[in-house]
């Protein structure tokens, strides 16, 4: 890339010593991007925006929050009542978590559909899964902070998962709690980690972007960039497109914050934590429900915990399970079907996770769990061997020989 000439002398002075301006220019301005990205590609930058919203609102909230079992609940309610715009920032943070997951899940399924995890973007994908794991840990610990009934019992149930580890499980749980039950030390360390982890996420996001910019974005056709005609500069094309997407996102987000802020929450979390009374139904936040269903689908304690973690772990090795050289599901007639079945399966698991673990729901969550793993471990490797793809177009800018289905 040619080094751009800057006319502003201050910019030139800095650039000579620290090439930030040419870097910004290269990564955000001239960065060649496939010209055919659809709106599914908006969700990456949206996720980054969500992270910023969460960090900013979180820092401001922490200035009025008290991480102590006697004061946490009241301090959150004080934010909601007495602190200027506290209600707004708290609801932004609370619903922001849900929207962050909505955006990231769409981003992940976009990657699955268009084969964005395939060579040479395996590390890009793996870093993304790392971000997902960190988000889950952060969201889980954040949900404990308001110290409502669901906070307390969610923390109790999830930390107890580790007691499934043979021999040292109980010791690990005691160590996690810093006591013999979820209590003040637990709340304090969760607050500390909940504050720290978003910055770790930000760090991994930088790596994620660095890996992305190494080979550039994948695209709906899943074919490599062949010539200059296949690309357009990131700015202004995708900056303005991302801004438009952001506008749509913010409109929906603020509508929920303004008119249905507790829609995705649980009424029990407006009852202060009581270590002596468990609510009738403990349900995790919606974004954990599919994993919760997998946990409960396995009738063995240790087995359930392993299955739940394996459900994410399998994503790490996905680039090597899917052996098909074709990326986009557009040109893989069988994978196209499997993709939608997998999405339906995940939604089914989400429903199962919300329902009491009895009757038909147990059966459905077991079927769903088996299918989930079968998709990745059995169907994808087989597909790589037997699927006959549709002919690929020659390049992004040239019409395809077989024509893309319209």
């Amino acid at each position, binding site marked *: 890339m040619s080094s751009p000439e800057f006319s502003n002398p201050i910019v030139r002075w800095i650039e000579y010593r620290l090439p930030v301006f040419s870097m910004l220019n290269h990564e955000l301005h001239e960065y060649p991007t496939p010209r055919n990205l659809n*709106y599914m590609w908006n969700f990456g930058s949206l996720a980054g925006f969500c992270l910023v919203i969460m960090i900013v609102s979180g820092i401001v909230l922490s200035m009025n929050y008290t991480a102590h079992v006697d004061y946490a609940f009241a301090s959150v309610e004080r934010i909601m009542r007495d602190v200027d715009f506290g209600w707004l920032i708290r609801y932004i943070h609370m619903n922001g978590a849900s929207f962050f997951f909505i955006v990231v899940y769409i981003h992940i*399924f*976009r990657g699955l559909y268009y084969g964005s995890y395939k060579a040479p973007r395996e590390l890009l994908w793996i870093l993304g899964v790392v971000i997902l794991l960190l988000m889950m840990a952060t969201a889980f610990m954040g949900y404990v902070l308001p110290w409502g009934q669901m906070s307390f019992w969610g923390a109790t149930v999830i930390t107890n998962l580790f007691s499934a580890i043979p021999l040292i499980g109980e010791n690990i749980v005691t160590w996690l709690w810093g006591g013999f039950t979820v209590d003040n030390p637990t709340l304090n360390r969760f607050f500390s980690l909940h504050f720290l982890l978003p910055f770790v996420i930000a760090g991994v996001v930088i790596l994620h972007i660095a890996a992305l910019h190494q080979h550039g974005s994948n695209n709906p056709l899943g074919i490599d960039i062949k010539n200059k005609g296949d690309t357009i500069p990131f700015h202004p094309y995708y900056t303005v497109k991302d801004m438009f997407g952001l*506008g749509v996102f913010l409109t929906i987000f603020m509508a929920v914050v303004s008119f249905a802020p507790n829609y995705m929450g649980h*009424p029990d979390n407006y009852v202060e934590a009581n270590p002596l009374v468990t609510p009738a139904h403990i349900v995790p936040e919606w974004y954990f429900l599919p994993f919760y269903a997998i946990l409960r689908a396995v009738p063995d304690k240790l087995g359930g915990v392993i299955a739940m973690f394996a459900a994410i772990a399998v994503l790490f090795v996905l680039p090597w399970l899917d052996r098909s050289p074709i990326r986009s599901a557009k040109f893989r007639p069988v994978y196209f079907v499997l993709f939608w079945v997998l999405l339906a399966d995940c939604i089914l698991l989400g429903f199962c996770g919300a329902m009491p673990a009895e009757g038909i729901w147990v059966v459905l969550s077991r079927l769903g769990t088996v299918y989930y793993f079968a998709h990745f471990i059995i169907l994808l490797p087989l597909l790589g061997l037997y699927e006959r793809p549709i002919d690929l177009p020659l390049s992004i800018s040239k019409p395809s020989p077989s024509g893309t289905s319209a």
Partner: protein
Amino acid sequence: MTLKQISSSLFAGLILFASASIPASTASAAGAGKETACTPKTLPTIPEQKWSFQGIFGHYDHDSALRGFEVYRGVCASCHSLNLFAFRNLSALGATEDEIKGVAQEYEVPAPPNDEGEVVLRRALPSDHFPKPFPNVKAAAAANGGAIPPDLSLIVKARPDFEAHIPKILGGYMDAPAGCEVGEGRYYNAYYPGYQISMAPPLSPDAVTYNDGTAATVEQMTTDINNFLAFVAEPKLEERKQTGFKVIIFLVILTILLYLAKREVWRKVH
């Protein structure tokens, strides 16, 4: 293909979104439980009510909520605390500074230790929170046959049936079905989980006297207390909905402009 894919991805997003509603629906279904001798044969009818605070332009019925405060302090306050409520909060319902001061002065709260180190009571100020009926949970349980009257500050947000909860509980008292054994100190209530509640039917006609001359029927008091407690649960609701409406209008216009700008920029690519 374009439209189809946008719609299918939107659909996926909606499903993810919709699955969020599941916990609430399970929770309300859970109240039913298994059929027993105590399962009510017919439920007392609770009149469908449109609450003024619902909807995009929702706001509290200030007069009703102020009357509800009279019901709270005249009836509920002898057992139920309202820890998150301070007298000064009444100003959001249109009470004047002098009225709030006058109400606060009727109550006493512990003062900081005096020069002799004793904690004495002083007259409450608008900045004080409403005094609790019991000093601690144990005292509350001891005075109520083991049952702990819940704090009412967030009750409207903390029950799966939200604003319908209090009218249901207040209107749910009835004779137990034949064969249903109601425990000592318990009352049969068709809308309470397990049907046996430790709270005696709290409202009777003219349990309080309204200053504005409104007749204190049980229905009127139920409506008023629910308006008041909805306000205490979410005091910033009016500000939130009003601000939100303006924000949404702004964002819709901005998004349309961004769309037009995007279309203009991308025209060059053709």
